[in-house]
């Protein structure tokens, strides 16, 4: 699509934004893949419409304020990128645009407060842990709270598992085949620390030495995907410094983190850390891809046959094009049958902080996902992202069902240990 975006004025990311607009031919094939278009049915809530709106805003014929409501409604699930034959790098437009817009944006007081709360707690595990505890107390006062804050409370778990920090190094069992560093993540480490433990155990079992830098922090993806580019850069820069260079890979078990860390080069474009970001991003690998490429030992058979529905997290399937690897790993488990979820390409509505900021759309998508999952009658749901796990669990329970929903790596871990899958 033709445009008159002032590329130079927009700084280092201007070129990437302009290129995404350039390659869009407005054919509309992305509409069919877009969760908000499927839910809302209007052109400005489609990828094609948003690209057009962002283009108009960058060109100056619409104001940023005018287009933001529609840009905000984007889940950033990147299903449009998978669907797009023209190769539009939608993410290269969306994240820089959000950052660009955030600079001049005026938010209502309560919305700003809610965002501030998210921004200042979620990326920091200790603060997040305290916030969750406080939030549980605040539930009593829910009716008195402004609507902007209520969805946050509703997402809080009933109880938090005990903090269980990993050691700084876990040695291999048997001969060493590789050495990796593990990103433990922020939110996940508070809500489900067992996923990191499972990751470390499965790696060790398969001959991989795991390094867990103690001073690591949040990878910055949450901030990056919500337009907080400066915070994202600060967080990322910290990890660029504290992660070791002498590892074969930097492993993540959260889809959003993996996708965000692959965006570091664009985030640091034209900045002193650009080279370091390139090297780092090049090493980042989702756990499923790493294990698949490494080749894993076949686990012992599950005690009884289990039907597992694998849910494609958008930030794995669309943002990183990872769909085959987790499935291949799961089917190495004897007695495990994989079933495919209808509309599997469609986002579950979790999408980082989306379920906090656009609760209505998130709820509709969550319900649709639960409905689709239940239609194929699995006994266990597998997913490779903590956000999806939380969201799907909530909506499966909303349908009065109690299916266990486990991280892919947890399933492998339990299979190795001879533990049953049919409970969380």
């Amino acid at each position, binding site marked *: 699509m*033709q445009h008159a975006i002032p590329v130079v004025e927009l700084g280092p990311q201007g070129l990437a934004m302009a290129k995404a607009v350039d390659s869009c*031919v407005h*054919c509309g094939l992305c509409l*069919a893949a877009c969760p908000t278009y499927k839910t809302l049915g209007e*052109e400005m809530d489609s990828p094609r*419409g948003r690209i057009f709106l962002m283009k108009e805003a960058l060109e100056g014929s*619409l104001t940023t304020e*005018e*287009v933001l409501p529609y840009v905000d409604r984007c889940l950033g699930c990147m299903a449009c990128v998978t669907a797009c034959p023209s190769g539009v790098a939608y993410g290269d437009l969306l994240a820089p645009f959000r950052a660009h817009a955030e600079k001049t944006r005026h938010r209502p007081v309560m919305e700003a407060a809610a965002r501030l709360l998210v921004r200042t707690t979620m990326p920091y595990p200790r603060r997040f842990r305290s916030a969750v505890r406080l939030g549980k107390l605040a539930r009593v006062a829910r009716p008195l709270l402004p609507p902007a804050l209520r969805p946050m409370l509703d997402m809080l778990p009933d109880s938090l598992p005990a903090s269980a920090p990993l050691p700084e190094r876990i040695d291999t069992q048997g001969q060493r085949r590789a050495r990796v560093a593990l990103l433990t993540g922020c939110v996940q480490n508070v809500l489900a620390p067992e996923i990191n433990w499972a990751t470390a155990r499965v790696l060790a079992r398969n001959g991989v030495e795991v390094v867990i830098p103690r001073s690591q922090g949040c990878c910055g993806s949450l901030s990056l995907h919500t337009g907080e580019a400066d915070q994202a850069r600060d967080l990322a820069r910290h990890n660029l410094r504290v992660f070791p260079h002498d590892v074969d890979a930097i492993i993540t078990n959260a889809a959003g983190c993996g996708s965000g860390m692959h965006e570091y080069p664009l985030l640091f474009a034209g900045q002193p850390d650009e080279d370091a970001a390139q090297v780092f991003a090049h090493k980042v690998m989702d756990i499923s891809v790493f294990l698949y490429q490494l080749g894993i030992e076949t686990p012992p058979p599950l005690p009884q046959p289990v039907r597992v529905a694998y849910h494609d997290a958008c930030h794995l399937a669309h943002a990183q094009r990872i769909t085959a690897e987790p499935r291949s790993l799961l089917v190495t488990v004897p007695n495990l049958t994989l079933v495919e979820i209808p509309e599997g390409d469609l986002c579950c509505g979790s999408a980082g902080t989306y379920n906090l900021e656009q609760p209505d759309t998130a709820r509709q998508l969550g319900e649709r996902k639960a409905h689709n999952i239940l239609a194929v009658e699995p006994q266990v749901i597998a997913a490779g992202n903590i956000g999806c796990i939380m969201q799907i669990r909530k909506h499966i329970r909303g349908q009065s069902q109690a299916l266990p929903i486990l991280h892919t790596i947890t399933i492998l871990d339990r299979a190795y240990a001879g533990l049953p899958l049919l409970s969380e």
Partner: protein
Amino acid sequence: MALETLISELTARIPPERLLQQRPQLAPYESDALTSLRARPRAVLLAGTQEEVIDAVRLCHAHRVPFVARGSGTSLSGGSLPIEDGIVIALNRLNRIIALDPRQRLAVVEPGIINLDVSRAAAPHGLYYAPDPSSQPICTIGGNVAFNSGGAHCLKYGMTANHVLGIKAVLPDGEVVQLGGASLETSGPDLTGFFVGSEGLFGVALEITLRLLPKPEAYRTILASYDSLAAAGQAVSDVVAAGLLPGAMEIMDRLAIEAAEASVNAGYPRDAAALLIVELEGEAVEVDAEFAHLRRVIERSGAGEIRVAADEAERARIWKGRKGAFSAVGRLSPNYIVQDGVVPRSKLGEALQRIEALSAAHGTRVANVFHAGDGNLHPLILYDGRVPGALERAEDLAGEIIHMCIELGGSITGEHGVGMEKRRHMPAMFSPDDLALMSSVRRAVDPLELANRGKMLPAGQTQVTAGQHEQAVTDHG
């Protein structure tokens, strides 16, 4: 002003979230898939019910305001380009399947339903909806009806018109009519067939009765590479001469192969100058026998590499590459014009050579992806709209290609419709008498020329009154 009176009447009836009037809401509706034309409508009505559509059309008629019906906005001919002093009636939410009758192989649908969703709904019954435009994951049946859309599989089972049995429509003055019905046959003139392909000039289809077909028992898909487009074209003639009737015969040239490969890794031979895809479908035993025959014909046709789809997944990949090819060309060029001319099949080779020569003479790259079995060419004329004069040069080349198609005894459009983009070429294909009759038919149905004003019929024929202002429809093309 009549337009503002209409808007205030609509505002009184339609909740604001379904009557879009703000700048950021309207901007994304300015273009369909033909982005060289843009027009911002006064409002977009996201119709929720058939009654709302009828109501809106009646109000437009009462206030003499032109309207454009729109589905998913995938027209390549600017067929759903809005009118600046008019409204858009968006039908994409009007997407129910009203009835699915597997025993009689019928589906009654609303216009906003997506083409592929009809086949998805029919699949559990072993049935499908045959017309398969490349945009089928998103294009709507209403749009297919308006433009008589085709697809890759038209050779055997025809275009949209051959699969539409009945239409309930609101005419441009608000009168609701039922054309055809549920039977494969009618008595009297084929009004349903006449409505299909009328590019929205006869009003808005509200309910469409579709014929479904049993899903073929077997498909066999073969890919063959050639060192020239002419050789691939000759292979098509050989297949036809052999008395075979494939479901589809498609050709792609080097540029299109490159783009499609970059897009979906379809596994096309990258070094080929031309690629031929032939697909047989039908009863398994018949397809097997025909396939042996087809294979011999292809082997003797001078093909380089020959590949046969081993399973459904490979077949799907082959078609994904082909169907995404237009959009994939977006990787090669920021802008392009898609042409849709038709030539007699035996003139394919000549037409392709002439396109090549024209491309060289104009210094403009042309990618070719086309329905070879139908002689339906799709030259994609690549240009960079930021370069002054590039669009004009591309349009000149497009015009020359269109005139070549007419000269060879073909048509200016096979399946995309005339829309905005080809109406200036109508006089080259039709005589003044032909066009005069089309205009009088149009005016008999829509004296105020409100429905999709400006599409199909050449500019200058339509002098209309909009509101209190005398306004000539000008050619944006």
